[in-house]
C-alpha cells in the first residue's frame, strides 16, 4: 500500500493554519476507508433457476414478511428485471436500505433478474440477436412456463431497457407492462457526449479487436467528467461530515461502479453502430434476427423513468420514447437525480420503487 505523503511545508504560518486539521482528516478518512474496503454488496436471497451460456436467471426468494402473502404472490404476474450488459445488476440490490429489489419483494411481487455474466473469448461472437432472442427470450420463456402464466412485467434498466424495448416490440404478447429506467431511445440528442465520441468509431475494427474489458468502458465513462468522477468525490470525504455508515455506502457504490464485466465484441460493435451511430431504434430501421424492431408495435402500458441530471443517458434521449411508442398508456417521469443516483441514491431508493409499485398496482 502506498502511504499518503503530503508535503504541507509550503503552507507556512497563517496560510497553513488548517493543515494539521486537514492532515488528521486525511488520516482518519483513509483509516475508515480501509475498514470499509471489504463491505459486502447484494442483500436479498436469490436462487439460479435457468442459465444459457454465461447468462443466469435468478429468482429472488420472498422476504419473510412478504411470504405470509404467498398465495397472493404466486398469483401475481412475475416481474423480470433486465439490466444493462455493461454493468452488474447487483446495484439494484446493493444494501437493505437501498434496494429496489427488496422494495419490490416487500410489496409481494415475484421478482426475477438476469445476470449476463462475464463473456469470455468463447463469447466474442455473441450478437444482439443472441442477447435479445436467446438470452432474454430464454429467461422470459422459462418464467412463463414455470409460472404457468401467459405474460410477465418487464423492467429494463439503461441498456437493458433498450434490449427490453426490442424484445417487447418483437414479442408483445409476452409482456404485459413495460417499465424502463434511464433508457435511451434517441441516441443523437445534442447533449449526448458519449454518442458524439463514438460516432466515428470503426465498428468493424472493434469487432475484430475482440472482447472489450470492463476497465476500458469504465475509462470511457470516467472520461465524460474526469475531475468530478475520479477526484472530487474523494476530496469531498474530507468535509468531515460522513459517518462510517455513509462511508460504507460510498464504498459499495464505488465497488459497483468499477466492477464492470467485459463486453462481447460483436454485440458491442453492433450496439455502437446500430444505436449510437445510426440511431436505428428511433428511426425504425433496426432489425434483430431479420425482424424489424418497430417501437410503434409496443402497445402495452409503459412507465419510463429517467434522470434529469443524467450525463450518460440525457433526459431528452429517454423522453423521446413517448413519441415513438404505439402505447396509449405511456407515463414518462423525470427524476431530479443523476444516472447512478437513480439506482442507488437515497432519493432514488425512495422514489423509484414507489413510482414503479403504484404504477404496476394500477395495471394488474
Amino acid at each position, binding site marked *: 500500500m502506498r502511504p499518503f505523503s503530503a508535503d504541507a511545508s509550503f503552507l507556512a504560518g497563517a496560510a497553513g493554519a488548517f493543515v494539521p486539521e486537514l492532515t488528521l482528516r486525511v488520516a482518519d478518512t483513509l483509516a475508515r476507508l480501509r475498514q470499509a474496503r471489504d463491505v459486502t454488496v447484494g442483500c436479498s436471497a436469490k436462487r439460479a433457476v435457468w442459465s444459457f451460456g454465461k447468462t443466469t436467471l435468478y429468482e429472488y426468494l420472498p422476504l419473510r414478511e412478504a411470504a405470509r402473502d404467498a398465495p397472493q404472490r404466486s398469483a401475481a404476474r412475475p416481474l423480470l428485471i433486465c439490466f444493462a450488459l455493461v454493468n452488474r445488476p447487483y446495484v439494484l440490490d446493493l444494501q437493505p436500505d437501498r434496494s429496489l429489489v427488496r422494495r419490490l419483494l416487500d410489496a409481494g411481487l415475484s421478482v426475477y433478474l438476469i445476470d449476463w455474466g462475464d463473456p469470455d473469448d468463447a463469447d466474442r461472437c455473441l450478437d444482439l440477436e443472441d442477447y435479445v432472442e436467446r438470452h432474454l427470450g430464454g429467461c422470459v420463456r422459462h418464467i412463463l412456463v414455470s409460472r404457468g402464466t401467459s405474460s410477465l412485467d418487464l423492467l429494463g434498466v439503461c441498456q437493458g431497457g433498450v434490449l427490453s424495448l426490442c424484445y417487447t416490440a418483437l414479442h408483445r404478447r409476452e409482456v*404485459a407492462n413495460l417499465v424502463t429506467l434511464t433508457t435511451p431511445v434517441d441516441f443523437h440528442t445534442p447533449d449526448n457526449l458519449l454518442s458524439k465520441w463514438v460516432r466515428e468509431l470503426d465498428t468493424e475494427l472493434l469487432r475484430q479487436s475482440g472482447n472489450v474489458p470492463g476497465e476500458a468502458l469504465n475509462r470511457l465513462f470516467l472520461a465524460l467528467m474526469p475531475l468530478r468522477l475520479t477526484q472530487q468525490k474523494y476530496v469531498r470525504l474530507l468535509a468531515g461530515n460522513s459517518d462510517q455508515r455513509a462511508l460504507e455506502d460510498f464504498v459499495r457504490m464505488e465497488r459497483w461502479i468499477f466492477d464492470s464485466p467485459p463486453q462481447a465484441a460483436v454485440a458491442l460493435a453492433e450496439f455502437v453502430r446500430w444505436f449510437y451511430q445510426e440511431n436505428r431504434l428511433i428511426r425504425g430501421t433496426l432489425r434483430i434476427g431479420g425482424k424489424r424492431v418497430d417501437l410503434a408495435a409496443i402497445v402495452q402500458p409503459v412507465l419510463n423513468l429517467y434522470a434529469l441530471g443524467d450525463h450518460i443517458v440525457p433526459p431528452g434521449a429517454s423522453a423521446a420514447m413517448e413519441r415513438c411508442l404505439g402505447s396509449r398508456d405511456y407515463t414518462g417521469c423525470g427524476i431530479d437525480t443523476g444516472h447512478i443516483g437513480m439506482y442507488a441514491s437515497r432519493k432514488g431508493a425512495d422514489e423509484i420503487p414507489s413510482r414503479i409499485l403504484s404504477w404496476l398496482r*394500477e395495471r394488474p
Partner: protein
Amino acid sequence: MQNPFMSAAFKPDLAFTGAAERFFELLKSFSLPGAGAAGAAGAAPDWSALAGSLAGQFEQWLKSSQSAGPWFTAASAPGSGAGFGAAASSFGPLPLGAGAAPQQDAQRSWDLVARLAQLQAQLASYWSEIAHDAAQRFVTRMGAAAGGAPTLDGALKLYELWVNCAEESYAATVRKEEFCRLQAQLANASAALLVEQRRHAESLVRAFGLPSRNEVDALYAQLKELRTQLAELTEARRPKPPQPDRATAGRGAGKRPASAPARDRRSRRARKPRA
C-alpha cells in the same frame, strides 16, 4: 504508477490517497503569494502565477490520466519511453513487436505507431487548451472567494470552484466536433494496431501448427449454432406457456390510472397506425 480505477480489484483507499495528494498540490497553488484565501496576508495578488501553476498541474494530470482517450490506453510511440512492446491497449498487451513480423507487415505496424504518435500530439494540444482555459476561468471567478482568514472550509470551497471551472472548460472542448473525431481516430488507430499485431501472431502460431484465433472463432461459431439448435429443439419439447389473455397481455388501451404524480407527463393518445 498504479491506477486505482483500472485495477481488477478496485481500491478506494488508493483512489482517495491519490485525490488527497492532488488536493494538497492544489493548495500549494492556492498558497502562492496573494493567491486567495490560503495566500499570505497583505501580498498583492499574482493571478498570472496562480493561473500558470493551476494550468500546469491540470495539464499534467490530464496527460497522465486521459492521455489515450477513453477507449484505448496509449499505444506508445517509439521514443516515448515505453517502447513498442509496451504499446498495450485496453484490449490487452500486444502479442509481438513490429520487428517480429515480415518486413511489409512490420512497416504497416510502424506506420500505425507513427500515426498514433501524431494523434497523441494533437490530443496533448487539447489538454493544454483545456488546462489554460480552466485556470483563467478560476482566477476570474475566485475574486469573491478570496480573502479572509485561511480555513479548511475555505480551501474546500476553492477546490469546488476549481473543479467547476475545470469541468466547464473540459466539457466545452471535448464536445467540439474535431475533438470527437480525434478521439475516434485514436481509438481506430489503436484498434488497427492491435488487429495488425494479432495478424502477425496468427501467422506465427500457424507456423508452429498451433490453432489460431480465427480457427478457434470458427469452432466457437459452429458450437454456438449447434447450441442454438439444441436450445430450439429443447424449447419445442417443453410445455408451451398458456395462451395470452387478450384482455391483459399486450393491451394498448390500458385503463386509466386513478391518480398520477404531479410531475408525470402522461399521454393518452389515439393509437398510432402501425408502420
